[in-house]
């Protein structure tokens, strides 16, 4: 039994049940398939994260974001005072995460690529773009760059999905995608 020492002291010499050999082989091959699928997706898939990231101070990141907002603000969102920024396709786009907002609101064009830079000015936050469902972790002092290509128009919410204190559930941002 499993609670007593093996009766056969040379248990490592016992032959295996055929069923066991077959299952171990299948399970091992399945592991190889799953491992290869990740690599395969890097080659042919369209959803892969870049490895591009930089160290940055919160001040420097805020400055770059404000520069972009100054140049490309097209309007304000309702009476919230939050600028809606429409940077040119293909450009570098900056998004600040801080307690408890995503700043600014972005307006992007469908089927155009943007280099999105993400960083936090204080604690960790979670960039959760809904309903398309893209979830990325945002750290302070790190600037992450991903190239994003919206393939549908509409209004998308950015939920914070990393707990960041008592206002966490109020932290909401927005991305507009237009034709």
């Amino acid at each position, binding site marked *: 039994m*499993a609670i007593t020492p093996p009766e056969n002291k040379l248990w490592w010499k*016992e032959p295996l049940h055929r069923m066991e050999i077959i299952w171990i082989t299948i399970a*091992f091959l399945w592991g190889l398939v799953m491992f290869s699928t990740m690599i395969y997706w890097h080659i042919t898939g369209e959803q892969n994260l870049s490895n591009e990231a930089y160290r940055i101070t919160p001040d420097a990141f805020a400055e770059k974001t404000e520069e972009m907002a100054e140049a490309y603000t097209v309007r304000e969102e309702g009476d919230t005072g939050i600028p809606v920024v429409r940077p040119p396709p293909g450009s570098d786009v900056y998004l600040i995460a801080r307690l408890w907002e995503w700043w600014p609101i972005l307006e992007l064009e469908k089927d155009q690529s943007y280099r999105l830079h993400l960083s936090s000015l204080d604690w960790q936050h979670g960039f959760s*773009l809904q*309903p398309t469902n893209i979830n990325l972790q945002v750290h302070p002092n790190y600037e992450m760059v991903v190239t994003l290509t919206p393939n549908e128009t509409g209004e998308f919410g950015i939920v914070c999905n990393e*707990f960041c204190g008592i206002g966490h*559930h109020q932290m909401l941002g927005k991305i507009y995608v237009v034709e």
Partner: protein
Amino acid sequence: MSVSTAEGALVGHDEKYRTCLDTGLKVYAKTETLIKVNAVAAVLFLAVGGLFGVLVALTRWPGVHLLPADLFYLVLTAHGAAVLLFWIIFFEVAILYFASSILLNCRLATPHFAWLGFLLMVGGSLLATVAVLQGESSVMFTSYVPMQAAPHFYLGLILFAVGALLACCVFFGTLVIAKEEQTYEGSVPLVTFGAITAAIIAVFTIASGAIILIPTFLWSIGYIAEIDTVTYKLVWWGMGHSSQQINVSAHVAVWYCIAALVLGAKPLSEKVSRTAFLLYILFLQLACAHHMLVEPGISSEWKVFNTSYALYLAVLGSLIHGMSIPGAVEAAQRRRGFTKGIFGWLRQAPWGNPAFSGFALSVVLFGFLGGISGVVLGTEQINILMHNTLYVPGHFHATVVAGTTLAFMAISYLVVPLIFQRDLVFKTIAKWQPYVFAIGVGGTSLFMMGAGTLGISRRHWDITFSDASLTFDVPGTAFLMLGLNGIFGLLAGVGGLMYILVIVGSILFGKRRDAEAVKANPIVAGGEAVSTYGSEGTLKLPGTITLVAVFFTAFVLYYFINWKFLSEVWPLS
């Protein structure tokens, strides 16, 4: 381990023991007491932490929305610490002492240190719990910097970890004594081997914890200026995820133990089962990568290699156990004459015995819900869909609650008569408890995964964003999912309460188990005839083959469905 018929003293050691009437094993008095106190501490934390869990589920149910935001985040932090850490690790210490001292017929090494470890664990767990309840440490179980908790929150966790490390040392010491005093012949039993696996991973886990928690404590009192956030996450999960691998090793050992005690089941192959445990030791530690898949500054090569435990070799370990455990049960049942059809052995299994039903439900839920979702969640690119959504707690409630907790509940129904020497009270409640708890937890896991698939965030007080300056509408189905999660969470709470009632009631008021009770109501069924059945026999196991085939098909389908989901997301590079 019933009434004391043989109280004796070993030559050279003045250690009291009794011989268990059920199993014939020697039960040393000091070991027995230590197992009892650790198990009791565990159950108390389960009661408190489980209650917190129900409050969390009721708050996330939008129709109920029970707690205010500050209290919700506080209770959620307390829930994680109380059950994920304290309940499970206290119980695991009890398992370590059982698997070493009792299974090897050996006195416990340095019981004084075992007590010191216990006191440190009690002190540490209380200190951390108090810190959370004071309200200044609602930082969640993960306590990601630069969010800061009160210093005594970190200090409590450190003390708890030191206590657990002492328990591991006592365990290893006992193995050495058993070997030297030749209290057993040949190799250690498989259950002990599983416990060794758990203890080795525990040492790695605690070392990672020390490397990250000590600097974090120093940072919280102002001696260190800054802690790098990515490094913190990497090392913290060296502790956080590895501690879940302790649980896997421990509850797989518990599965083998229950199958052996209740059915006299023998592992199909000692070699295969032990190799599977060995794979855990070698590869499980890489799992901290599961939490780093969408972080800045980490290369894809690192992610792919580590998140897959190098070619999925630790997953291979679990897949092996997933066949050899039902296989061992089927073999034992067939040997006892339940040979009708493919599943006659399963139909004739003792489903009214909570130790068996809890074990069987734990195996199924852990494999189908926890195992498959874990591999999918840990796939590098698919993680983009799921990171920090409710899918994550959905997954780990299937592993840690439906898997580990249910397995520990199941073996409690053997621990009470064998170690506490009490007959169970409220037998009908005991009989239904595993089913109620399994349905409740299975439901919450499923519905949290469902909500997560819809993109609903974990650790979030208000999916309507009523206090936010912007607006966002989540899909209506998400409300349904969270409502169902609340209902099934309540059911799991009822199942937990039934467990506490039976266990605490039996310890306090159960009839003392004497020789007559052992004869009338044997715990250890099976006996020698079954136990001598070996693996390399010609016995066919069509039931296990069918179960494994169903499992594998579900796994493959669900895996590729998620790639399909991913392919529909905005292109990213």
